[in-house]
């Protein structure tokens, strides 16, 4: 049985990775549909990627 800190660390990694994947998917969907550089989809996607990536980065720094 994994220790609680280990579970928390794994969950953080998985959820952060999921955010990045969602962000990439939003960006790809927007671009494929012909979105402009300031479209809502692109901005949201970039924010998702940054949030997920930032959390992943912090998780690896600890």
């Amino acid at each position, binding site marked *: 049985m994994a220790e609680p800190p280990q579970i928390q660390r794994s969950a953080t990694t998985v959820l952060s990775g999921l955010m990045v994947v969602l962000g*990439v998917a939003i960006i*790809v*969907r927007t*671009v494929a549909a012909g979105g402009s550089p300031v479209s809502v989809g692109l901005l949201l996607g970039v924010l998702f990627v940054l949030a997920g990536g930032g959390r992943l980065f912090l998780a690896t720094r600890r």
Partner: protein
Amino acid sequence: MAEAPSPRRADDIGHRTLGSPVLFAVVYAALAAGVYFSLGVVADHALGLTPLIFLIAALLFGLAAMTYVEGASLHPDRGGSTVFARYAFNELWSFVAGWAVLLDYILLLAVCALTATNYAAVFYAPLGDGLPELILSVAIISGVAIGTIRGFSTGRVRRLAILVIVDLVLQAGLVVLGLATFFSWEVLTAPIELGRTPRWEEVVFALGVATVVLIGLESAAGLSGEVGTNRRGLRRLVTTATVSVAVVYVGISLVALTAVPVVGGQTPLGEEALEAPVLAITGAFRQAWLADGLTYVFAVAAVLTLVEAAASAMLGLSRLAYSLSLNRQIPRGLGRLHPTRGTPYVVIVAAAVVAGALVIPQDLDFLVGLYAFGALIGLLLAHLSVIALRYREPDRPRPYTVPCSVTFRGGRLPLPAVLGAALAAVAFVSVLVLHEGARYVGVAWMAAGIALYVVYRGSQDNSLVKRVTVRESALRRDREQTDELGEFGSILVPIFDNELDDDIMQTAGRLAGDEHDDFDDERGALIEALWVFEVPMSLPIDARLPDGQLKRARTALARAKAVGEEYENVEVATATVRARSAGRAIVDEAQRRGVEAIVMAAEEPTRIRGGALLGGRGGANESFVGAVTKYVLAKATCQVILTAPAASQPATQAPPAPETPGGDLGAVGNGRPRRIRR
């Protein structure tokens, strides 16, 4: 990013100075760069089947990765297939592998430089063609050569690793975005008419070309003597590298062939975009902002990655050539080390000149086809060697073993290596038959190399198939007429700037073997005077050193050089290294430089007594020599010769030792201690 040193374990590859990130950086730098120059050439030949070709190349890469990792962990010397062939077969086959891979390193250097100019042309169009392209290519090659002569710092490894990660993320992003935007099964498959578009011979040839992904393995195997990773790390490297090849190369080619499809049996990827194929993909996006943005981003990434891959190739080349020269497979003068940098500058300059000449025709198809010729020879010999070593050295510890082995004729036959060897043989024959460059230039290169080898070995009365080191050569002389200790061709002498420095240099001078080299005007033995900067753990290893320390090191090394070169036929090279521990640095440098002996002054033993003498639990302090000397004696893989200080008190005297003909010399090492006090 450097890993903390881990305790030694049974499955550790061994005593290492670099962390596993260097493996990652070297393997992936070649992989990431390969996309930028191989896609166009492969697509030009394989057309719609390009993704399938890269998928098969990924399979070949996986098989090769397993073979290289087993071979490099079995014999972690400098060099990849050349080392495997040495232990599995003989020196001639080892040379064949080494010479072929040497060609590949030079070609990779030329290809990376040439391709980088085409990506740089995004910012200034004339750079992509004609004289400006040539000038920039030569400038890149020169810069890489100078950088390699200056040395491979851990800081550079870190930068390379970061660059490679960023580049792989960019490439993966392009794959995802491109598949979502362009992918169409019909666009991909409609132009394919098996046997006609493309023709079978073109497909087979493209498969050979796709082996460009393999050179990273050679570079990584060349570093295997210095990297610290364990069994799990090696398995992970094999798996992740193979998956990365499959995802990136197959993914990019799927996007490329749907973004810039085959029309009328041709694709722009193999025509106007041949030398910068990734820019053809980025330019195909409908939105101008996206196409322009990606084009600039990928142009920058490509230039940086290609330059770093060229540097990585030069690094591999210098290590391989140095290894060949140490083993007397090429004239020793080629492997001569820079007096202060400790890098084989002669061979680096020679390789840069050859690479510069290869760039002149500005023909990427020719260079990549020729590259496949060398890569496949190295790969074939690597597979065959690992198979042979399963029978020749069945009991030797293998930190990593190729899986899926079956018992065959009393040994464990690795089936993946057998399959890899068969595929490599087929691809090699196809390249030889179908590519004129490989058929003429490749064969001429190999013939010239073998002729050089035969003449060089013959001039020294050395066997063509037996391993010849200076030590063995010295042993063949009349031992009765030779001073027992006067037989070392290369000696490492650590300098500590104390009163014994002159003594040890004189000792080393007398021990230096009289090694003649007909290609090098009867050059004598090489003494490598080494100064170790012990950097405390409170500072980074690359911290700025105080000027006083630098001056002290320079003065001591200059003095050592002057003293050592008073002896006839003795050349003294000086070098400095940074390390956390002097003892470990001396042992590592001795191994890296392949010296036959270490001559050092046994530093004054500590006068602090301990253990049982002071009522403690342990035994009496056995410090008849200091900690550095003790470490070197325990860990060195070559002979260690001590010039002992005069005992300042009876308690620190050494035990009696047998006399040697030298009178004031003694040798200690490898469990055969001999020591004479001055």
